[in-house]
């Protein structure tokens, strides 16, 4: 019996050697995809571009003069087919699980619904769903990937770092999938555009990607509106997602400006008393620190401080209310009010959920703010 077991053991060991089937892939047989771009082409099919790093170019000192990445594109009827077509063009196996970013070109999302894309994302186990999804405005996503960034070795990395550093962590594709599956929330997707500015003294820059606001998507993940630079900070605050760091406002009399840093931003949704689900209050909370004061206010005076706090609250409230109104007009509930009402009034919600995009427009949303001025900085009055 013992001998039989030994024999079995040996056989077991030998089988794979003989069959030669193995999932063994050397790292230098892999192409690491860092970014993916999806564009629409004329004949109705889609074009997928993959940004692939070239490891040998990343070795010490090499990255300065030669490209450290390549962008390869191919057309296909869906993402998988296009990827297969790309695979045929390059000598290494595509490895998409380290992807940082998915960029979707304007031409694509003007014509198609994004939820077609995300089936592939959620189904394939090799996707981590940790990558960021962005829209590229005013151009093809492919060109975005082709850009060379002055600081980072690929634009995808630059864009994701840019979002991270500006407090926009919560825009991964997982979040997008969750938002799009839930009935009472519509996703916000960050929008980037390419800005042509000279940032380097030596050579002419081809342009750098710049964060340019949010796209508001509807239930089918089709963009229905855009929020610009200034509105988007408030929108992401109201949606309970990203955090924006600072705000600058003119002082009452129009002379001089006040700048605050905001921290510990918080948001909550409340129904107005009276149990009418159609009246909702978005309450925001934050702590403000005065950083810059060119309005020649004496901040050692208690009354001035209270005055400033009141004014700041009113200013922000007005600002955000405008954003809310704009979003509401588009009919896409990016704030998750529907989700709130779903939890608060589940039975009422059952009647509403199918036409929530239309019903959302009729909800009366009020913004309330409670921002505390925590500190006026290390000097009291103006330095004279």
């Amino acid at each position, binding site marked *: 019996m013992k001998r039989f077991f030994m024999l079995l053991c040996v056989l077991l060991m030998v089988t794979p050697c003989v069959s030669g089937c193995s999932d063994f892939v050397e790292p230098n047989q892999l192409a690491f995809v860092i970014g993916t771009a999806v564009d629409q082409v004329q004949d109705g099919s889609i074009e997928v571009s993959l940004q692939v790093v070239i490891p040998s170019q990343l070795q010490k000192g090499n990255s300065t003069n030669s490209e450290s990445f390549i962008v390869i594109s191919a057309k296909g009827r869906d993402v998988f087919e296009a990827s297969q077509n790309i695979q045929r063009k390059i000598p290494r196996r595509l490895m998409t699980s380290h992807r940082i970013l998915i960029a979707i070109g304007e031409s694509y999302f003007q014509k198609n619904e994004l939820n077609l894309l995300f089936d592939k994302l959620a189904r394939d186990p090799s996707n981590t769903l940790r990558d960021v999804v962005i829209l590229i405005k005013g151009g093809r996503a492919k060109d975005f990937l082709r850009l060379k960034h002055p600081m980072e070795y690929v634009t995808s990395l630059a864009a994701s770092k840019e979002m991270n550093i500006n407090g926009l962590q919560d825009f991964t594709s997982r979040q997008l999938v*969750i938002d799009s599956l839930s009935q009472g929330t519509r996703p916000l997707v960050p929008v980037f555009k390419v800005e042509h500015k000279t940032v380097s003294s030596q050579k002419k820059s081809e342009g750098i990607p710049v964060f340019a606001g949010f796209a508001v998507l509807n239930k089918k993940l089709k963009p229905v509106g855009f929020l610009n630079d200034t509105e988007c900070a408030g929108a992401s605050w109201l949606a309970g997602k990203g955090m924006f760091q600072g705000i600058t406002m003119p002082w009452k009399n129009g002379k001089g400006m006040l700048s605050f840093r905001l921290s510990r931003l918080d948001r909550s949704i409340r129904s107005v008393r009276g149990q009418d689900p159609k009246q909702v209050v978005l309450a925001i909370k934050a702590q403000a620190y005065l950083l810059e004061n060119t309005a020649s206010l004496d901040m050692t005076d208690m009354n001035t401080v209270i005055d400033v706090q009141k004014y700041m609250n009113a200013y922000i409230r007005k600002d955000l209310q405008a954003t809310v109104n704009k979003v509401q007009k588009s009919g896409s509930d990016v704030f998750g009010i529907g989700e709130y009402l779903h939890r608060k009034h589940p039975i009422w919600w059952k009647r509403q959920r199918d036409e929530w995009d239309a019903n959302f427009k009729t909800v009366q949303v009020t913004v309330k703010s409670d921002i505390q001025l925590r500190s006026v900085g290390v000097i009291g009055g103006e330095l004279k």
Partner: protein
Amino acid sequence: MKVSGYQMFWLINISSMIMVSYLPIQLAAREARQDCWISMLLGSLVMLAVTWIMLRICMQHKDKTLVVFIKDLLGTVLGKLVVFVYFLLWFMQMAMIAKGMAEFQSLVMLHNTPMLFVLVCMLFLVAYAVYRGGITAVSRCAEVIGPFFVSVLFAQLFLNPQGMDMKRVLPVYYDSGWYLILKGTFYSMNYLVDPSIILMLFFFAENKRTAARGIMWGTAVAMAWGVITTLVLLFVTGPRMAAEMIVPVYSLTKFVSILNFIQNIDAFFIPLWLLGAFIKLGVGLFILSYGLSQWTGIKNWKLIACLTTVVWLAYLLYSGHEIRLTNTLRSLFLVGGLYPFAYIVLPLLFWLIGSIRQHRKSSGSPS
């Protein structure tokens, strides 16, 4: 071959957690959406009650295995027939876990390696363990693996704090209603644990009292883990996504990301899950072969273990081609017929007959 109470705890705990991590969450989520944790909770309570009943039966027949005492209760012919139902059940469960394991591996990790090889290696290890030391080997392995397995499985639930949103389970009840919640319970509870293995295992317990305590605790911890996992899954992904996921526990580990560096702990999760599955299969193979040896009267259960492994492998290979055989998990015959019959009706019957016998004996003896 004796198993201590502590070992019993780990044996039952690991096998139950393997079961919980494999199927029921997904089955419950599909029916009851964000209320699937209630389904899981109800299912867990039912299963705990069933485990308790099984233990009562075992306590009535302390020094006999299922095969032996069932003969006393129901007579030889009927007893043998009923035991065969349990044999079938265990065999199906072993096949299900082994198949699920191999399929999962080929889906997630090994796309080109033939499934046969993965399977043969695993079955060889299981058979080897049973052959070398029977339940002793399996239970000793269990108590080594157990602490790691359980602590990692519990810890990974809390490694995703920034992704969690407690509000995602709300509103409770209104969206699904009792019908769907109970339907979720109905489907999922049969795959939560396999309480019937106790009927065989308890015979090997060294100290019946501590073993009984170990079994109850083992089941309870696994059940608690199941409910918490369901909740965390809902917190992290929301009900819609949870319902769509095939292997939710695995997907949950994929979402973990701490400091953008500690991510992909699935790399540790998968080997650990394999270790757990090994215990589950080892227990299954042992009780099946030991039971068969008592059933047939062939003394050499080690030989039967080897033969069973061969049959098991053959069945797995055959069922791999027959796609219909793999999709029987939700079939009404199993869920509505076999499982309740084996888990609830039969044990209650055994308990009743056993109690009546005992009662009669105790009242009859003084006269």
